[in-house]
């Protein structure tokens, strides 16, 4: 059964798109991530023009983050103030990112930069997470406590000026690293079509030492707004948001996510992190291989309408 995508201007098999959405939704529900880092490469593998994949991926991230954020909001595990500071940085980053996106597209290096960013980020975040979770699993096996956050232990981040009190997180922290983190994630959102949760969550825990209970909710809060902003900016400047593709992905994604959450609840935290780390690493390695092995064809053709 095929469906015509009006913006991507091609016919695709709706079952494959539904399957992709459901699989990514399942994983995102299971691990509590937006899934943008999976959906964008998958769409590109399926011949969707990268420009459309990135912009549409951001739209799908909005839908999958909303239901997660609502749950966290009900539980009261969102630090709105912290989220807003992140968001300010994020919006600035997304603006720079869209500009960077258009620039890279013009010089023909967008696919390379997207792949390199994915390889570097997924590779490093994946290895760090895997290392940490394996250590945690070992300790759990030896019946030792696993302190994720070590209070009193401060790093250079906590010596920066412009400090602000974040009541819900119970921390006193400079706004500079928070806004910078938001800014960097914002760039990634618009260049790579990812929410950035897979980088933001570890950075908030390990770098900013924000309590784990508010981290996921707060990052989702910021992801919703930055992705929504990216969708609107991409739609306005590049006309590359395919609403039909996005809607099919969303529907499958949110349903898949519900089942993912149920499976996720049966697993322990460190097991989940180890699995997510493996998944992140696998995507990273897959893209790295593509960069290193000789391509099937060293030539590629793009027409002016949908170049990247």
């Amino acid at each position, binding site marked *: 059964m095929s469906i*015509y995508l009006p913006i991507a201007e091609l016919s695709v098999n709706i079952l494959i798109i539904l399957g992709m959405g459901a699989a990514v939704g399942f994983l995102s529900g299971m691990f509590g991530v937006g899934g943008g880092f999976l959906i964008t490469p998958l769409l590109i593998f399926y011949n969707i023009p990268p420009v459309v994949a990135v912009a549409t991926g951001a739209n799908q991230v909005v839908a*999958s983050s909303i239901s997660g954020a609502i749950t966290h909001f009900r539980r009261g595990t969102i630090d709105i103030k912290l989220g807003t500071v992140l968001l300010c940085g994020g919006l600035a980053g997304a603006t720079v990112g869209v500009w960077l996106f258009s620039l890279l597209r013009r010089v023909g290096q967008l696919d390379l930069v997207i792949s*390199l960013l994915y390889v570097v980020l997924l590779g490093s975040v994946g290895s760090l997470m895997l290392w940490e979770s394996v250590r945690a699993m070992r300790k759990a096996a030896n019946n030792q406590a696993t302190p994720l956050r070590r209070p009193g232990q401060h790093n250079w981040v906590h010596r920066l000026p412009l400090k602000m009190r974040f009541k819900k997180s119970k921390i006193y922290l400079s706004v500079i690293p928070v806004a910078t983190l938001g800014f960097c994630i914002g760039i990634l959102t618009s260049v790579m079509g990812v929410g950035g949760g897979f980088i933001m969550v570890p950075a908030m825990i390990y770098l900013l030492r924000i309590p784990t209970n508010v981290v996921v909710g707060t990052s989702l809060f910021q992801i919703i707004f930055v992705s929504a902003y990216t969708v609107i900016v991409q739609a306005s400047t590049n006309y590359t948001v395919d*609403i039909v593709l996005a809607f099919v992905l969303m*529907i499958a994604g949110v349903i898949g996510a519900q089942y993912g959450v149920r499976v996720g609840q049966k697993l322990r935290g460190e097991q989940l992190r180890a699995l997510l780390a493996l998944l992140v690493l696998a995507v990273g390695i897959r893209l790295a291989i593509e960069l290193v092995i000789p391509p099937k064809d060293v030539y590629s053709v793009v027409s002016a309408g949908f170049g990247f």
Partner: protein
Amino acid sequence: MLRLARIVLAVTTFAFTAPAFAQLQDENANDFTEKLEIGISTDEIAITSDFRGADLTIFGAVDGFDPNLLAQGKYNIIVSLEGPKDNATVRKKERVFGIWVNTSSMTFELVPESYSLSSTRDIETIAPPGEMGNMGIGVDHMRLVPLGFVGDGSNLGEFRNAFRRIRETSGVYERDPGGVQFISSSLFKASVRLPANVPNGVHVVRAYLFRDGTFVAAKALPLRVVKTGVEQVITQTAHEQPFFYGLFAVLLAVITGWGASLLFRKD
């Protein structure tokens, strides 16, 4: 499953009036007696949500032919369906520090985005390559003019070949050296194909008549490929009201996400 929208087009021998292509119809301003007419029943193809490409049948007639030459099979017909033209950039990857990077590129000016060629026999045997090259018939003879500075032009050939090869393997450029058949002494039928990832816009059906290796007459008809219904509304909105389109896309995501969390809420 692979149901193709088959557009059967009427047999017509009367002349079409297409002002934009009038100059092409007058190409045969010489003393040949033969006249070429082609017809299609529609000048518009609609892309619907289940569009999977279309096979197009074009009917035509040769008038004023020489029966002896016809009996000897000296008349040959080539029919092409050319998509809208756009600049196309060919990029070449090279290994830089172990990874494959696009290092050089060449942009060709206004090349058709799709091209389907059908003929009575292999076009290389219809007329000498020089003639085909002059007329730009066939993928191998298509005019590929590089845009901007190309250095000494030594790599022009490799980029042109790469362009042709990629477009052919991806199926947007096709040829069928048997796609044109005479159904009576002067009436012929040609089938050309619109690929599934067909570009929107004005496509041109061109027919060429050759007599014993010499070009005699040509005819061109426009064929508009348009999105209809929802697809058309979406494209139009995306380009004319991009901000509200983006806003609507976000709203749709919010409703979907929210709806799912209400629907699956565990009480």
